[in-house]
C-alpha cells in the first residue's frame, strides 16, 4: 500500500513536464498608433470558416502598419472572409462575405459607423462587392441581388434582382454594371453582365461576355472593363471592354489571358498566373487608348511576388500597390511601386491581403 501511495505522490512528476512551453501572447498595438490621416487600407481576406479576416492600416507619414486596425479601434473582430473594400465620402465599406455583413467605417480613424446585416430572412446573402453613384452604395451579393444603400443614412433602400452569384460591380454613365459569375453552379457558370439604370433602379439589360465574369472597373472615358475567369478548364480567362453608351461588348483582349486587373490613370495593370508553368505571374501594363501592351513586365526591379493576390492603382500619384498572399496560409505583404515599376516600400499584412484603398483626409477621390 505504501509503495502505491508513493506512486500517487510521484504522479505530479508528470505534471512538472507539462507547460514547459508558454503560449505566445497577444501583440499589443495600443501604444504605437499615430494617425496622419494619409495611408492605405488593406483588407485581409483570411481563410473561410476561421473568422480571421483583418484590416491593415499603413500610414504614409509614419510609415507604420497596424494589423489588425479594425480590432484595435473597435474592440471586436472584423469577421469571416472579407471580400471587398472601397472608400467613398470619407467612409470605408467592407464586404464581409462569410459573416454576411457590410461594415461601414469612418475612414479617418477606422471606427465602425454601422454594421449592416445582409440576410434574407435567416439566409445569408453573402455581400461580395461594392460600387458608388450619386451618394448611393450598390452592394452585390451572392444571392443574386444588388442592395442600394444610402451613404448618409446607411440604410438599405432597395434590393434589385440581377443574375446568378454576382461577384463584381462598377458604375458608369449613370448606370450600374454587375458581373454575374454563377460561381456556385460549377461547371454551369453564368456569362453575363447586368446593367441597372440609376433612374429606374431596375435591371435593363444583360450583356453576354465570357464565362464566370468577376472583376469590373470603369476608366475615365466611361468604358467598363470586365474579366471573365472561364471554367478553370478549357475556357480561358479574358479581359473584355463594354461601351457604356451602347452597352455592347466592344473588345476582347485575345492575345493574353487575364486573371485580375486594375485601372490606373491611362493604363490597365493585368496579371495572370499560369499555374501549370510554375505559378509565376508577370504584371502587364496596357495602354487604355491604343489597347496595346506597353510593358510585358511592369515590375522594373528585382522584387519577386510569390503569390499575387490583389492589385490597386492610386490614380493621383500613379503608384501601384500589389499584395502578396505568400503561401495563402500565412502573413502576407503589400508592395508599393512607383509608376515606373520600381519598388518604393513594402509592409506586412494579415492573411491573404486582397482589396485595398488609399485614403487622404482632405483630398480624397
Amino acid at each position, binding site marked *: 500500500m505504501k509503495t502505491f501511495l508513493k*506512486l500517487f505522490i510521484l504522479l505530479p512528476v508528470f505534471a512538472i513536464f507539462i507547460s514547459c*512551453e508558454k503560449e505566445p501572447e497577444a501583440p499589443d498595438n495600443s501604444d504605437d498608433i499615430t494617425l496622419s490621416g494619409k495611408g492605405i487600407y488593406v483588407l485581409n481576406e483570411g481563410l473561410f470558416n476561421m473568422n480571421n479576416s483583418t484590416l491593415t492600416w499603413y500610414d504614409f507619414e509614419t510609415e507604420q502598419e497596424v494589423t489588425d486596425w479594425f480590432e484595435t479601434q473597435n474592440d471586436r473582430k472584423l469577421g469571416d472572409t472579407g471580400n471587398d473594400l472601397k472608400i467613398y465620402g470619407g467612409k470605408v465599406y467592407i464586404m464581409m462575405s462569410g459573416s454576411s455583413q457590410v461594415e461601414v467605417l469612418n475612414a479617418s480613424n477606422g471606427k465602425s459607423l454601422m454594421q449592416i446585416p445582409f440576410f434574407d430572412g435567416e439566409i445569408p446573402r453573402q455581400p461580395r462587392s461594392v460600387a458608388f453613384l450619386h451618394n448611393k452604395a450598390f452592394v452585390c451579393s451572392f444571392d443574386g441581388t444588388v442592395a442600394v444603400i444610402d451613404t448618409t443614412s446607411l440604410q438599405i433602400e432597395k434590393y434589385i434582382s440581377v443574375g446568378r452569384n454576382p461577384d463584381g460591380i462598377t458604375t458608369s454613365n449613370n448606370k450600374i454594371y454587375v458581373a454575374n459569375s454563377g460561381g456556385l453552379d460549377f461547371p454551369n457558370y453564368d456569362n453575363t453582365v447586368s446593367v441597372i439604370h440609376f433612374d429606374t433602379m431596375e435591371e435593363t439589360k444583360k450583356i453576354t461576355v465570357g464565362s464566370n465574369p468577376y472583376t469590373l472597373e470603369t476608366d475615365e472615358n466611361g468604358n467598363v472593363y470586365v474579366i471573365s475567369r472561364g471554367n478553370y478548364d478549357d475556357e480561358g480567362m479574358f479581359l473584355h471592354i463594354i461601351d457604356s453608351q451602347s452597352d455592347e461588348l466592344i473588345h476582347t483582349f485575345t492575345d493574353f489571358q487575364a486573371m485580375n486587373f486594375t485601372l490606373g490613370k491611362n493604363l490597365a495593370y493585368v496579371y495572370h498566373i499560369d499555374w501549370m508553368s510554375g505559378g509565376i505571374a508577370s504584371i502587364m501594363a496596357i495602354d487604355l487608348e491604343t489597347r496595346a501592351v506597353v510593358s510585358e513586365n511592369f515590375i522594373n526591379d528585382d522584387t519577386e511576388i510569390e503569390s499575387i493576390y490583389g492589385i490597386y492603382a492610386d490614380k493621383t500619384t500613379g503608384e501601384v500597390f500589389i499584395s502578396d498572399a505568400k503561401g495563402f496560409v500565412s502573413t502576407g505583404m503589400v508592395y508599393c511601386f512607383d509608376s515606373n515599376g520600381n519598388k518604393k516600400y513594402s509592409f506586412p499584412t494579415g492573411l491573404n491581403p486582397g482589396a485595398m484603398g488609399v485614403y487622404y483626409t482632405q483630398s480624397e477621390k
Partner: protein
Amino acid sequence: MSVKHLLAFFIILTGFFKVFAWQEPVDTVRLGEVIVIAGHPTLQQRSPVPMQQMLSPNLAIISGASAAEALRNFGGVTIKDYGGIGGLKTVMVRSLGANHTSVMLDGIPLNDAATGQTDLGKIPLINLESITLFVGQPLHLLQPARFYASANVIDIRTKPFSPDENDIKTRAGIRSGSFGIINPFFSTNAEVFKNTNAGINFSYTSAHGEYTFQNPYSSEQQIRTNSDIEAMNTSVYLRHRLKEHSYLQIDAWYYNSERGLPGAVILYNTHTSQRLWNEDFSVNLRYENSHPEKLQMLSLARFSNAWLHYLEKNYLNQQGQLSNTFSQQEYYFSQAFVYPLNSDLKVSMASDLFINSLDSNLPGFAEPLRYSWLTNLGARYERNRLYAQANLLSTLVNDQAQQSQSTATQSALSPSFSLAYRLTSSEPLLRLRFMYKNIFRMPTFNDLYFARVGNPDLRPEYAQQFNLGMMAGYDRNGFLSLSGSADIFYNAVKDKILAIPTQNLFVWSMQNIGKVDIRGLELQLQGQYNPGSSFAAGFFANYTLQRAIDITRDNASWYRHQIPYIPRESFSGGINFEYENFSLGFNSLFNGHRYVLAENIYQNMLPSWWHHDVVAGYQFRTGKTIFQIRFEVNNLLDRQYEVIRSFPMPGRGYFVRVEAGF
C-alpha cells in the same frame, strides 16, 4: 570512452545477464487467436512495437459516447474533434495525419476510400471489449496484409465477438443525459446449434445535441444548433467451430445515421443548414485455423458499401440547395498463413486483394476504381529474452478513372523491423525495444479526383518511423503491479499531400509538397493495487512531447514551425477505486496550445485546455443477473475550449447509464 568500448561493455553486460537468465514468467500465452490478446495485458509490457491497450474495465471508467473519448487518453494520440455528439472525430498518432492510421473494428478495416480517414464517432463506446493502438502494426502473425499497410493501427473489439470473463451472455441497458442523448443498447450471444454460436450487438443513439457555448471570438453566450443526430449500429455474427483451433464465421455490420452539421461558428452569422446521412453495410466471411503447432490459416472475404448524402439547404446556386451523394464499394479477399519452423521461429505470409470504387452525383465525377494487391512476408523469432519481428510488405495499386481515361500504377516495398530484449531476469523486468518501419499512404480518391481540387498526378506520401524505448514491469503476485515505458520516436514525412490554393482561394489543388520532421518522447505509467480484500485501485498516466516541424521550404515564414493541430505537449491520466460494489473513476486530459495554420503566431493559436471527467458506479448481483448503474460528469469544470478552430466543444454534461447482464 569510445563507441567501441561502449559496445563491448553492452555485450558483456547482456551476456552477464544471460548467464543468470530465469525462465520467462509471462511467455506462455500463444497469440494465434486474436481474441487471446484482448484478455492478456502483459503483451503490452513486452511488445517490440509501442502498444497501448484499454480493456473493458478501463473503458468502463471513461465518460463519453464514442471510441474517440477513450482513444484520446492514449499517449501520442491527437483526436481531431469537431465537437458535439455528431461531430467528426478522426485520429492522428505521433503527428502523422489521420490517413496514416487505420482503424479496424472486429478485424474489419473502417477507413473510408474517399477521405482515407475513419470517423470514430461512428463507433459507440458502449459494448467495447478492447481498444488497442499499435505503432507500426499489430503483433499477431495471423492477420491480413492490410494490418501491415499503415503507420499505425487501432484495433477495436466489441463484446459479443469476444469471450466474457464473467460469462455474461446478454446485456441490455440505456445511457441518457445531457444534450438530449438517449442511447439504448443490447447485445447477446448464444450457442444456437452444437458448436455454433450466434451473436448480435445493437445500439441506437439519438440526441438533439444542442449546447451553450461561449463564442471564442466575441465571448458571447450562444447555443450550438443543428447538431442533432440519430444513429443505429448493428452487428451480427454466426460462428461455427470446426475443430479445436478452427472456425468458420459470417458476420455483418450495418450503420445508419442522420445528423445536422452545425458547421463552423462564424462571427455575426449563425445560419446553419447542412445535413448528413450515412448508410454503411458490410458482410464478411472468414475461416481461421490457428493450431499453434501446425500451419495456421486465415481466409477472409468481404463486401462493403458506404453511402453518404450531404445536403446544404439555402445554398445560393440555381437549385437553391447543394445535394451530393457518394457511394463506395469494396470487394476484399485475404489469405494469410503462419508456419512454425521450430518452437522459436515462425514465418508468415498474407496476401490481400481489394477493389474500391466511388461514385457520386457530382457533375463530371471521375468514378474512380482502384485495385490493390498487398502481400506481406513476415518472420518472428521469440526465445528467452529476445522478441524480434521483421516484415516486408509489397504494394501494387492500380487506379482507373473515367475522367483522366488513363490508369496509374503505383508499387512499393515497405520493410519493417522490431525487436525487444529483456535486460533483467527478475522483477522489475526491464526491456529495451527498437522499431523501424518505412510506410506510405496512397492518395485517397478525394486527393486524386475531387472536382477541381483533386490531382491525378499525386504520388504516395511516405513516412519513416523509428522508435527506441525502455519498458519496465513489476508485479508482486497480482497484489501490486506496475508497468511503464519511455519511448523516443522520430518520424520523417516526405511528399506530404497538402491542399494549396492555385489560382485563387476558390481553386485549391492537392500537391505532394510537404516535408515534416517529427521527434517526440512518450512516457507511460500504469498500476494496479489489488490486496485481495474488497478494495482495489488503479491508475494510468501518459505524457507526450512532440516536435513536429515543417521543413518543406527554408524561405517560408513557417519554416521549422510546429505543424497545425499538433500540441507540443499532451497529458492524460486517470485513477479509479473500487470498494465492494462501488467504483469511482477520475480522468484528466491536457492538450498544450496548438496552431491552426502553418505559422506559429498568436493569431493562429488555439489555447491549451484541461478536461476532467468523473464516473461513479454501483453494481450488484441478483441470482445470475448483474445490475450496474453509473453516473458520469463530463467536462467537470465546464471548460470552454476548441479542438478545431471555430468548432467549440460542449461544456459540462451529466449522464446516467443503467445496465443489466446475465
